[in-house]
């Protein structure tokens, strides 16, 4: 036993090692990525680990491992579970023999996501248990139980931390690592693993029959608990329970929900001891709906009658406001304060020297009046450059592009997609676009890595998650084999070359693919690649602003002249943008 100050995801990873995990798979996605990043960095790994190409692939791998009787962990962000929903729904029928824990991290307020969906709804839909931690310590403590539960009921267990758990820190008491002695062995049993109609009807019945025992067991485990202190009660789940505990006045009862499905009998007995109930939870009214089912004549306050919001994340002031509005706090104890208005925003931006910026610049130059579908990755920040018109989900740039191209829209369609996203779910869109004769240009922004989530390797990187060398996939060969009429690979730091390739593509019909290939500027720096910085000769600079409008954070403008600051990574693209040749290598005048 030791105590450490850890990030939620670090504590979760440690708990997996304490549980003797045998098999780990997942696809990166904020806020879930650090769990596998911590597990793959362990020096003496006794478990198999992979970054998979997408969440469906990851879950199917982990499910098969659990069928072989070993303990498997599969991690993803909430929207990743949409991709993995197909195997999820039926894995509840087939069940597992080894423990299978599916970590799907939710992101209330969409800090780093395209939506605010609630993983608890998936658990409800699939009828599998779901654990929802209220603190970093509880997130840690739930993991070993999740594996045991999974094995006890022969079902996958969903573990659903939120951003404020994954990226929170706390003093955590850790257990000791347990090396596993399990070896995978597949026992053939077609009635379990071949879900033809005759088998699946029986499996569905078995899944439903498991439910009452699961509900009882979750009460015994203590993740759902209460403290009767008066005639009115607050029921809260997940991290909201921590916020409520900070504010709870004397004389108000409290129930904390951390595990689903909730036992209705147990919940009803608590509710009926009170005259008024307030339910506080982030996102969907999962708890509130069950409370309303058992409440009878007891008034319930929550989202459904306008006391709390369906959107966004909670915080101590937000919870205090709900409690005060519903009459559970005499007044809001937090001061009403206003931030200073009209400050220039500082949103995340593409790094100094990021080659995505060059690709967007060239695209806008060649395809002036065009439609720019894009995808999910660092390059979504191309929105600020006016080069991103759509983003919906992973892999949807090429498909949205071909849809627009077939719609009758007369303008050119040129879409952007990163290498990892292309390998995740982009290839199907390319096959489909070529097969169905779309006219469009696809630019694969190939930085050899999954950058935005923290530089995880992918099949394009030349190494596995554990650092073992692997053959880097040929994007060129994939695109050619899909039948694309034009496939060119170009270094986007060569601005003229990039523009020329785009112009050639523009002249042709069919699906044209340009692979803009250059190492991510962050991985290049970490690999020790030094290009040398550039500087502006103030005497030559005319202050035209060409370089400044490019939007690189290394270029500033003061006293009517451009200036290059020490963020410069030496990509030399601004040299090509300057009409008067005022930019040159540092220290060589």
């Amino acid at each position, binding site marked *: 036993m030791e105590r450490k100050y850890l990030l939620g995801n670090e504590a979760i990873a440690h708990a997996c090692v304490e549980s003797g995990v045998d098999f780990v798979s997942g696809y990166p996605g904020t806020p879930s990525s650090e769990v596998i990043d911590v597990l793959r960095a362990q020096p003496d790994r006794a478990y198999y680990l992979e970054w998979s190409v997408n969440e469906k692939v990851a879950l199917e791998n982990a499910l098969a491992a659990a069928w072989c009787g070993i303990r498997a962990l599969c991690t993803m962000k909430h929207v990743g579970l949409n991709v993995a929903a197909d195997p999820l729904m039926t894995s509840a029928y087939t069940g597992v023999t080894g423990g299978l824990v599916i970590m799907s991290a939710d992101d209330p307020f969409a800090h780093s996501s395209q939506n605010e969906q609630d993983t608890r709804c998936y658990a409800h839909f699939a009828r599998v248990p779901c654990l929802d931690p209220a603190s970093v310590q509880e997130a840690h403590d739930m993991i070993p139980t999740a594996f045991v539960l999974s094995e006890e009921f022969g079902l996958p267990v969903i573990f659903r931390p939120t951003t404020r758990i994954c990226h929170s820190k706390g003093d955590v008491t850790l257990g000791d690592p347990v090396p596993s002695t399990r070896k995978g062995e597949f026992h053939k049993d077609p009635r379990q693993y071949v879900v033809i109609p005759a088998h699946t009807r029986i499996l569905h019945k078995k899944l439903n029959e498991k439910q009452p025992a699961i509900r009882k067991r979750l009460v015994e485990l203590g993740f759902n608990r209460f403290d009767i202190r008066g005639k009115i009660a607050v029921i809260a789940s997940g991290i909201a329970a921590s916020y409520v505990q900070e504010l709870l006045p004397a004389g108000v009862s409290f129930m904390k929900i951390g595990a689903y499905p909730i036992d209705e009998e147990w919940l009803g007995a608590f509710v009926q001891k009170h005259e008024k109930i307030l339910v506080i939870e982030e996102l969907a009214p999962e708890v509130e709906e069950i409370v309303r089912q058992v409440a009878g004549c007891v008034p319930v306050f929550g989202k459904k009658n306008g006391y709390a919001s369906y959107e966004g994340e909670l915080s101590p002031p937000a919870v205090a406001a709900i409690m005060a509005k519903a009459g559970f706090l005499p007044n809001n104890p937090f001061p009403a304060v206003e931030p200073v208005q009209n400050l*220039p925003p*500082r949103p995340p931006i593409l790094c100094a020297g990021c080659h995505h910026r060059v690709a967007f610049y060239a695209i806008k130059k060649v395809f002036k009046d065009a439609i720019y579908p894009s995808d999910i990755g660092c390059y979504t920040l191309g929105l600020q450059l006016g080069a991103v018109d759509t983003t919906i989900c992973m892999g949807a740039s090429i498909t949205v592009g071909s849809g627009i191209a077939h719609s009758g829209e007369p303008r050119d369609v040129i879409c952007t997609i990163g290498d990892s996203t292309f390998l995740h779910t982009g290839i199907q869109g390319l096959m489909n676009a070529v097969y169905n004769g779309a006219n469009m240009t696809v630019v694969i922004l190939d930085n050899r890595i999954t950058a935005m989530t923290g530089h995880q390797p992918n099949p394009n990187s030349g190494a596995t998650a554990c650092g073992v060398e692997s053959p880097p996939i040929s994007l060129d060969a994939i695109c050619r084999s899909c039948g694309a009429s034009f496939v060119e690979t170009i270094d986007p730091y060569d601005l003229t070359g990039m523009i020329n390739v785009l112009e050639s593509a523009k002249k042709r019909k069919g699906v044209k693919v340009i692979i803009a290939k250059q190492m991510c500027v962050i991985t290049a720096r970490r690999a020790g690649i030094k290009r040398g910085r550039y500087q502006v000769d103030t005497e030559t600079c005319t202050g035209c602003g060409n370089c400044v409008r490019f939007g690189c954070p290394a270029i500033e403008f003061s006293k009517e002249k451009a200036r290059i600051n020490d963020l410069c990574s030496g990509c030399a693209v601004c040299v090509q943008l300057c009409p008067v040749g005022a930019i040159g290598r540092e220290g060589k005048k």
Partner: protein
Amino acid sequence: MSGSFDILMVGIGGQGTILASNILGEACLIEGRPVKGAETHGMAQRGGSVESHIRIDGLFGPLIPPGKADLMIAFDLLEALRYAHYVKKEGRIVVNNHVVLPTSVYTQKLVAPTEDEIIAALKKNSLCLLDADKMAADAGSPLSQNVVMLGAASGSIPLKPESLLEAVRRLVPKKTVEINVKAFESGRAFGSTC
């Protein structure tokens, strides 16, 4: 209500706020005190505005409510102003006397307040203004700026300086321990004068 001492650390992605918050957390462990925190990860780190919440003796959630921070440590003047409403009336602000202008100022021609305007606005609180960049360079590395800032704030933090220094030794890269100890001490010496 929570009896925690709440520190908000703000800056720009890449300035080392995460290491600084880890040092505070480690110092709490050394003293056997509970601590909670929350920070910005993911896309927002790409040169964006970042915030780290640290609640010494925190028992509940990791988030500091606006208007309740006892101390703000800001690595950039503009970011200090952006988050100044988090600091309580009697709270203290320790800020690095520099502004990195956001790219929006150049590309969208937005107007940023001047350094003097920012400082005047921050002065409603007890304010300690320091040149952490220079002090870090003097200590031996510009990268020790975050530890200079911690040192300068340490007089207001309810943790023993020995615990903070021990945490610095444990968490910074081995080769830079000497530089960072020097950075902490020069920050601390300066902090006691303002």
